């Protein structure tokens, strides 16, 4: 109760009785201020503009009775307790007061009880008020949560620990085309496309995953599901937040189709163009028989060799996309030594190895193609320089990856080119004869192997390429193999 003195409105026409009541209250230890009235009109306006904490009313006044006052409070929903103090009224009337909402009835002979009764009434009012406030707060909160859940762009599903649907929001109902009551009679597993045969009930299920749901019409819908657990009254419940991924999936599928068409095109072009080029080559041979001209012959031969090189690279571009990878243990050093002996036979070369990892578990042909392209690239650029070419190879294991580094002391790659060198048909030095496909292709193959190929920045001299491959020893490799061995 507030520390302020309470305010009491007396409805009383006898000054004597009023003083008796006030005296009884003070002797009961109650501090209060009070005012009084005996006219109904005044009672009405006081109640409205100057409401007291409690009303103590005589039963019968010249203008009205305590019952009229009670009715008025009720009608205007005014929440002030009213206590009746009166001479003999009979049991019937007393019961009627209480029935109409009076907090108590005190006969004039028992005024000693008045202060206790007032205190009790005020405590009750206070409790009631607090309860109502809490209730209102709760209702506001419920209303807000309801609005939140309805307005969510994600679907929301609440399951019990046996997978029975307890609650769904409007977004989820709309996504699958079911009504709320239809969903509440279903188990979660019934909504899954490709439902697993066995669902462990006790396992923890928190996390994110992608899945396909079945709509009421039988369509499959790709969704992203984020699952978490809550405990309500010691019962486990599962919250699933569902976002629609079907549009994204569709785009992806379209892209994939386009991509595969492109690869088909490249594949066909790279094969079909060989025919006319080999015919040209034949014609060249046959011109040689009748009108030998070394200069023209060499120039034409060079062009034809270029054309074949482009076709070979294009064939490789599609080959490693479609080819089944055959994964095996590859020892890095012998592959590199073999390639270097082949490529750098004619120029002065110094080769250094610093291998912390000796073998990688990957597709041999793919790995060899990447190395070949990188070394071939080094060779082409080294030819523009007049010094001993030095190449160093190193390998190490970092963060579930094996990194193989190839560094040279060649002319290096100027900053402005470094962003583009992995692009298709990009040639950093146009005066060099190259297809502009080697590095593009190598990066593509590296990605197919679950790794990547990149250029290390900040080198003063030469270039430094780093090939990363998934490390089969690491645990994540086994959980999420980057390899797609299909």
């Amino acid at each position, binding site marked *: 109760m507030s520390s302020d003195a309470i305010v009491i409105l007396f409805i009383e026409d006898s000054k004597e009785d009023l003083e008796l009541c006030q005296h009884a209250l003070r002797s009961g230890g109650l501090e209060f201020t009070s005012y009084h009235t005996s006219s109904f009109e005044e009672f009405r306006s006081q109640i409205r503009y100057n409401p007291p904490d409690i009303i103590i009313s005589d039963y019968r006044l010249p203008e009205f009775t305590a019952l009229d006052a009670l009715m008025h409070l009720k009608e205007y929903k005014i929440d002030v307790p009213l206590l009746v103090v009166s001479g003999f009224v009979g049991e019937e009337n007393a019961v009627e007061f209480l029935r109409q909402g009076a907090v108590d009835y005190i006969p004039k002979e028992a005024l000693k009880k008045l202060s206790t009764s007032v205190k009790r009434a005020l405590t009750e009012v206070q409790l009631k008020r607090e309860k109502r406030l809490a209730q209102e707060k709760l209702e506001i909160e419920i209303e807000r949560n309801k609005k939140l859940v309805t307005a969510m762009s994600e679907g929301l599903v609440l399951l019990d620990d046996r997978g029975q649907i307890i609650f769904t929001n409007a977004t989820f109902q709309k996504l699958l085309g079911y009504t709320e009551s239809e969903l509440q009679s279903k188990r979660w597993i019934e909504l899954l496309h490709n439902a697993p045969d066995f669902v462990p009930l006790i396992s923890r299920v928190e996390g994110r995953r992608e899945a396909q749901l079945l709509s009421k019409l039988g369509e499959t819908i790709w969704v992203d599901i984020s699952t978490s657990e809550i405990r309500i009254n010691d019962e486990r419940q599962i919250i699933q937040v569902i976002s629609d991924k079907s549009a994204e999936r569709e785009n992806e599928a379209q892209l994939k189709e386009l991509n595969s068409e492109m690869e088909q095109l490249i594949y066909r072009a790279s*094969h079909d163009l*060989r025919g006319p080029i*080999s*015919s040209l*080559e*034949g*014609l060249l*041979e*046959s011109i040689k*028989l009748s009108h030998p001209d070394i200069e023209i012959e060499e120039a034409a031969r060079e062009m034809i060799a270029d054309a074949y090189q482009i076709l070979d690279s294009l064939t490789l571009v599609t080959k490693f996309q479609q080819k089944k990878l055959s994964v095996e243990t590859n020892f890095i050093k012998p592959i590199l030594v073999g390639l270097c002996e082949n490529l750098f036979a004619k120029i002065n070369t110094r080769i250094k190895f610093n291998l912390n990892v000796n073998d990688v578990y990957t597709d041999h042909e793919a790995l060899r193609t990447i190395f070949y392209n990188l070394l071939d690239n080094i060779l082409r650029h080294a030819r523009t320089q007049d010094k001993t070419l030095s190449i160093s190879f190193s390998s190490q294991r970092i963060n579930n990856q094996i990194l193989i580094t190839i560094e040279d002391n060649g002319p290096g790659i100027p900053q402005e080119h470094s962003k583009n060198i992995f692009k298709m048909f990009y040639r950093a030095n146009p005066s060099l004869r190259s297809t502009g496909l080697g590095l593009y292709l190598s990066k593509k193959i590296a990605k197919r192997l679950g790794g990547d190929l990149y250029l290390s920045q900040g080198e003063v001299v030469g270039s430094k390429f780093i090939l990363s491959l998934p490390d089969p020893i690491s645990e994540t490799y086994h959980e999420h193999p980057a390899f797609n061995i299909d």
Partner: protein
Amino acid sequence: MNIQRLILIDDNRVDNFVNLRMLKAAGLVGEFLVFENPREAFEWFCSPQGSDPNTAAESIVLLDINMPDLSGFQLMDKLQREHPTGLPDYLILMLTSSNDLADQVRASNYERVLGYFHKPLTVQKIEKSLIPLLGSLFDKAS
């Protein structure tokens, strides 16, 4: 060298022209038959002339693999299946401009196919591989 007949089957006129010149330049002599249409070649093989086993044994066939209507392999299959008296033993060499290993493997599945050439045919290729091959074949026969 006892070559009676050289039969060139290629849908590409230029390739036939070049191959013919190369074979002649390499010193091969005999009757030259050129087909641009594999179906015409099929008709000829089925004729009495094409069915004679004696001349067949001394005839070389240069057969292109990649032809639109009927590929070299399809022509071989068709001849083995539909030849009225059974295809006599020609010396067959496949030609291709593809670098597809699968073609090479497939060619080796045919008993009568002696070898496999990447186009274009050059005098060097003929001198290096075809002539020694023919030499060894006919030496054994004689």
